[in-house]
C-alpha cells in the first residue's frame, strides 16, 4: 500500500506541468532562434479596413527587423528592435529615428498594437511570474503577474493554452486596476516540424470594440539563415530598398 502511494506521488510529480514550463512550451511553438516570416496585417476600424504587408526577421527574443512592403507609400519603412530599444527608418524623410520611451504606448503603424508590444515582446518571460490558475480537459489558464520591480504596462495577463500541443488560444490583458483592456486571440494553427504555430493573431481593444487588428503569417521559416548585419542600425537604411 505504501509503495503504491509513493508510486502515485512520484508519477504525479513527474507529470505535473509547471506554469513556467507551459509558457516555455508556448514560446517554443511561436518563437525561433533565427526566424523569417512574411506577414499581412489588417487593421479594421469603424471607418474601414487597411492592409499592410511586411517581412520580419528575428534572432530569438532579443533582435528583430521588420520591413514594410505594402502599401506603396509606406514601402521601405524599416524597424529594428534590439532588446527593448526600437529604431525606425523612414525613406520619405531619410531619417533613422529612435523611438523614445514616451512614445512606446503609441500605436504601431496605425494598428491596435503599440510600439511597446513590438519592443518588449520578450518581457513576458522576463517581467512576469506565471501562475497556473485554472485547468480543464482541454486547456490551461495561466495568469501572468508582473514581477516586483518590472517596468511593465499591464497589471495582469491571463493566457489560455491548449493542453495537447501548448498552443496559445487567447491572451487577455488587464490594466493596473484590473480592467480588461484588450484580447488577443490565436487561430489558424499550422504545423512546422515539432512546432504548432497559430498563424493568425486577432487583437481587439476593449475600449474600441469596432476596431481589430489581424496579423496573418503568410510564410514562416523557423531556421532562416540571417546575416548578423541585419540587426544593426545601418541595416535600417541598407535593407530599406
Amino acid at each position: 500500500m505504501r509503495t503504491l502511494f509513493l508510486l502515485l506521488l512520484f508519477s504525479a510529480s513527474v507529470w505535473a506541468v509547471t506554469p513556467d514550463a507551459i509558457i516555455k512550451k508556448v514560446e517554443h511553438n511561436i518563437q525561433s532562434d533565427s526566424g523569417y516570416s512574411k506577414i499581412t496585417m489588417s487593421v479594421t476600424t469603424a471607418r474601414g479596413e487597411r492592409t499592410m504587408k511586411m517581412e520580419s526577421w528575428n534572432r530569438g527574443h532579443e533582435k528583430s527587423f521588420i520591413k514594410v512592403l505594402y502599401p506603396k507609400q509606406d514601402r521601405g519603412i524599416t524597424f529594428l528592435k534590439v532588446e527593448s530599444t526600437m529604431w525606425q527608418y523612414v525613406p520619405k524623410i531619410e531619417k533613422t529615428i529612435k523611438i523614445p520611451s514616451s512614445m512606446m504606448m503609441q500605436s504601431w503603424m496605425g494598428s491596435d498594437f503599440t510600439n511597446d508590444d513590438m519592443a518588449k515582446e520578450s518581457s513576458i518571460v522576463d517581467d512576469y511570474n506565471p501562475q497556473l490558475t485554472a485547468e480543464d480537459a482541454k486547456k490551461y489558464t495561466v495568469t501572468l503577474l508582473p514581477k516586483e520591480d518590472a517596468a511593465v504596462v499591464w497589471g495582469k495577463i491571463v493566457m489560455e493554452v491548449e493542453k495537447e500541443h501548448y498552443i496559445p488560444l487567447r491572451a487577455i490583458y488587464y490594466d493596473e486596476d484590473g480592467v480588461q483592456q484588450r484580447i488577443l486571440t490565436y487561430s489558424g494553427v499550422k504545423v512546422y516540424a515539432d512546432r504548432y504555430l497559430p498563424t493568425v493573431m486577432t487583437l481587439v481593444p476593449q475600449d474600441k470594440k469596432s476596431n481589430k487588428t489581424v496579423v496573418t503569417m503568410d510564410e514562416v521559416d523557423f531556421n532562416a539563415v540571417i546575416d548578423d548585419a541585419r540587426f544593426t542600425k545601418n541595416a535600417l537604411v541598407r535593407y530599406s530598398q
Partner: protein
Amino acid sequence: MILLKMALRELMTHKKRSFVTLLLSAFSTGLFIFANAISDGSHNQLIRSSVEVYPGYMQVTNRAFEDNPGFDNLIFDAEKVKQELAGIKGIGTVAERFESYALYSTDEQSIGGMFTAIEPENEANVSRLRRSLVEGEYLSSDDTNALYLGVELAKRLGVGVGDKLSFISTGADYSFAADNLVVKGLFKTKLYEFDNGSGFVNKRYFDEVMRSGNIATHIIINPLDVQQIDALTRTAQQVVGKEFEVKNYKTTLEDLILAMEIDTIFGYITLGIFFIVIFFVIGIFAFLSVYARIRQIGVLRAIGTTPRQVVGMLLIEALILGILSVGAGGAAGAYASNHYEKHPIEFGSLIDMDPEEYYKQYNMVADVNLPAEFNPPKIMAEMLIMLLLNLLSVVYPIVMINRFTPTEAIRYV
C-alpha cells in the same frame, strides 16, 4: 428739519468722535470694495488666461470624442458644421483644429508631443497663439512644412527658428505619416506644459500629409459676448445636432471654475467675518457715543421731544456719517480698483522662487500680475451694503436708549 439741525450740531460738537467714526467706516468701505475688486479681477484673469491661451470659450467635438478621443470620433464634415455655426447670431469666429500626436525628431533627439493643425487666421481670433509669438513668424494659410513650436519643446529638441526637423505620426486614416518641417516661429504662452509639448502647422498642409481633409477634432468658437455664452452654447447645440457636443469653458475648465467658486465661498466667509467685525466696531462706537449722551437725551425728552424724534435724530446722525464715510471710502475703493485694473499689482518679487517655476508646479499660466476689476454697478451695490451696515449698527443703541424714561435718563451716571 429741526432733527437734521440737531443731528448736524451734535456731529459738529463732537468733531473728534464723528471723525473717528467716519474714518473707521470709510476705511472699511474702501477696503471692502478693493478686496472684492482684486478677488474678482484675479479670478477673471485666471479664467481668461486659461481659456484664451488655447482651449477657447466654446468648442464642438464629436459626442464620442471625449470618452474615446481616437480618429473614429471626429467631425467628418467640418466645413458644413463650421458654416452652420457661423450662421448663429452672437458667434464671432469659428476655427477648426485637428489635434494629433507626433514624434518630433532631429539628428540628436526624438521627442513626442502634440502635433496640431490650425487655420492660422481664424485661430488668431480664438486663442492667444499668435500673440504668444516670441521669435520668428506666426503661421499663414499658405504655409507648407512650417512649424510653430513651443519654446520649451524647441529647447528640448535643440532647434531654433529656421532649423529643420522631422515628424512621424499616424494619419487620420490610420496610415503612416511623416515629413520634414522647418521651424517658422516659436511661441511662449507661459503655460509650461503647453509650451513644452506642442507644435502647430497650417491645416491645409496638415490635411495633405495626414489625410485629414474636411476633418477636424475640434471646432473652436469665439462668442461676441462672453456673458451670453450659456445661451449661445444651447443654440449651437441645437444647430449642430446630437452627433456633436458643444461645450463652453464652464465645462471644459470645470475644475478651475470649481476651484474659483470654492475660493469665492472662502472669500464670502472672510467677508462675513469682516462684516461682523465692522458691524460690532461701528455698533460699539455708536453705543458708547449714544450712552455718553444719555443725560442730554433725557433733557430733550423732558422738554417734550418724543422717543420717535430721538430715534429720528440719531438715525439722521448715523445716516450723515454713513453717507459721508461710505462716499469717501467708496470713492477711494473705486479709484484703487480702477487704477489697479489698468496697472495690475506685480507680485513676482513677493515670492521666493522664479514665478514661472512656481506656476509650473500647478500647470497654470505664469502670470505675475494681479489685476483688480473696476465694476461701477458692483461698487455701488457694495457701498449700499456698507451704508445699511452703518445704519443697522446704531439700531440697538437707539432701542436701548429709548427704554429709559426722561427721569431715569437725566439721573443716569
